[in-house]
């Protein structure tokens, strides 16, 4: 039990030390690589909230990741072309301000998650997986045909968005922004997991009869969890779009949903820091194995198989052991 917090702390310190070293060593590429890991981690933390804590196996979290990306892309596109996003019935202008873009993305992704959740939470199991997948694919094909914003080619944004007081084009400064956001999201998810809501949600995951027998319904719990989950993954989408200064329909594709799920499973389902470990491992593998062979996914697949078969707690569970309630 005591090992897991230590491991988590070590992970956070490593994620601070490595980019700082890269900065000193003047290796901006490695900083950007770690930034990607951080952003994937946030996306994974989002999915883990639904999947790990609520038991909702969503195979459509690309919908929120992509929506976040397009919120950033569309707002920045209009800001750089000096055209309004909407001129009737009221004028909405584009913006390059990160905090505003984040808020818009969080609210819209949360709202999208409520809409998708309200429909798909009527089902469970395989049907839930398929319906969430279907919603994400709908958005994928919609953006492909949405020529205003580049259609299949996506949208390029010339300059990264602004954050007051920082030079966001400096890799280490943009890294700092993402790192702090990851800390906030982790803190939030940790607090919720220990709260009344967290207790009730976990009970619904384990046993729906139980939560009903104590007078509460699982639907509201699931829907709220799904909304929070979607909002977090949406935030990750914004950061990803800002990192690359590019958005495309790929963000909505089922590959993206699958990758986010891989972070969660590799790292440890239902553990607050699981997706962080998973995303870091994914990036490390992609970077090292990807250099050896373009078919590195074979090794990733083998590893995933190993985790699913032999280490259900993922990387965190493998190192820290099974969580027990008493010492």
């Amino acid at each position, binding site marked *: 039990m005591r090992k897991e917090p230590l491991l988590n702390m070590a992970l956070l310190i490593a994620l601070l030390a490595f980019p700082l070293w890269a900065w000193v060593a003047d290796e901006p590429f490695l900083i950007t690589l770690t930034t990607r890991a951080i952003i994937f981690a946030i996306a994974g933390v989002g999915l883990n909230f639904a999947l790990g804590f609520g038991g909702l196996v969503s195979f459509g979290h690309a919908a929120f990741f992509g929506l976040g990306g397009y919120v950033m892309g569309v707002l920045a596109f209009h800001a750089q072309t000096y055209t309004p996003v909407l001129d009737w019935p009221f004028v909405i202008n584009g913006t390059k301000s990160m905090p505003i873009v984040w808020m818009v993305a969080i609210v819209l992704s949360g709202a999208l998650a409520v809409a998708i959740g309200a429909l798909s939470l009527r089902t469970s199991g395989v049907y839930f997986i398929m319906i969430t997948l279907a919603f994400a694919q709908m958005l994928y094909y919609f953006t492909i045909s949405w020529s205003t914003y580049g259609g299949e080619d996506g949208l390029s944004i010339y300059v990264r968005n602004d954050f007051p007081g920082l030079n966001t084009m400096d890799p280490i400064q943009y890294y700092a922004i993402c790192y702090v956001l990851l800390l906030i999201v982790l803190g939030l998810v940790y607090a919720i997991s220990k709260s009344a809501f967290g*207790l009730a949600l976990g009970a619904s995951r384990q046993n729906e009869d*139980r939560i009903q027998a104590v007078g509460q319904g699982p639907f509201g719990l699931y829907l709220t969890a799904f909304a929070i989950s979607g909002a977090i993954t949406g935030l990750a989408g914004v950061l990803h779009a800002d990192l690359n200064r590019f958005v495309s329909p790929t963000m909505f594709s089922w590959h993206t949903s699958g990758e986010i799920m891989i972070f969660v499973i590799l790292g440890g389902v239902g553990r607050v820091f699981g997706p962080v470990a998973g995303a870091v491992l994914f990036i490390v593998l992609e970077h090292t194995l990807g250099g050896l062979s373009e078919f590195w996914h074979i090794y990733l697949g083998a590893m995933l198989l190993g985790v699913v078969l032999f280490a259900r707690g993922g990387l965190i569970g493998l190192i820290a052991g099974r969580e027990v309630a008493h010492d």
Partner: protein
Amino acid sequence: MTKPLLDVRGVSKSFGAVQASTDINLDLREGEIHALIGPNGAGKSTLIKQIAGGLRPDSGTVFFDGQDITGLSTAARARLGMGRTFQISSLAMDYSVLQNVVLGALGRRGDIFRFFRPVMKDADLLATANQALEMVGLEDVKNFMTSELSHGQRRQLEVAVALTLSPKVFLMDEPMAGLGADGSRRLMELLGEFKQMAPILLVEHDMDAVFALADRISVLVYGKIIASGSVDDIRGNPIVRSAYLGEEIDA
């Protein structure tokens, strides 16, 4: 006689050609233990589900505390004051014993949409939870994982969670199933105490327990209540003896 707290009137339910409940009338009054007995497949669990929620009768009405609850969800019925224990322990297995009882207390209080305050430090909920654990004698294992408990302890925990709901009635579906002699005796003593708090509708297989505890007994056979009355009435009832008890008493 007091007005019944729980009143099942003319409830029928069939699954295809199988008539699981036929025109069932049953009530539960303040301060009593009303036992529902019957051989396997008699429709006891089907009936409990129609009372506690989860199955809607084809016809008939279930009144609880004067209110028609036939169409209400399981959760709504629990909120009205039905404390149910399951035939097969239905607990949050990955939680500690304490977490399971705190969950009960939380469900009772109703404020599940709180996101930041640590629930396991909530003095109110802990007090309710610890009291319930003490009553059933599980305070020593409260920090154990529920999955580590013995079968008997799980049954006790089911009862403890029901207690945290401070229910108006207890619905207990074979609480003694699978318990040893010791466990059964312990639970019987507890049930004797609990009926002062809230009456108990007890579905039970253990005849000794039923005859020792119950104030009234109803006998369910093939979906029909064939007899209902005091312990002595049932013991002496020739229809019951031939339909059900005969074999068991001789055995």
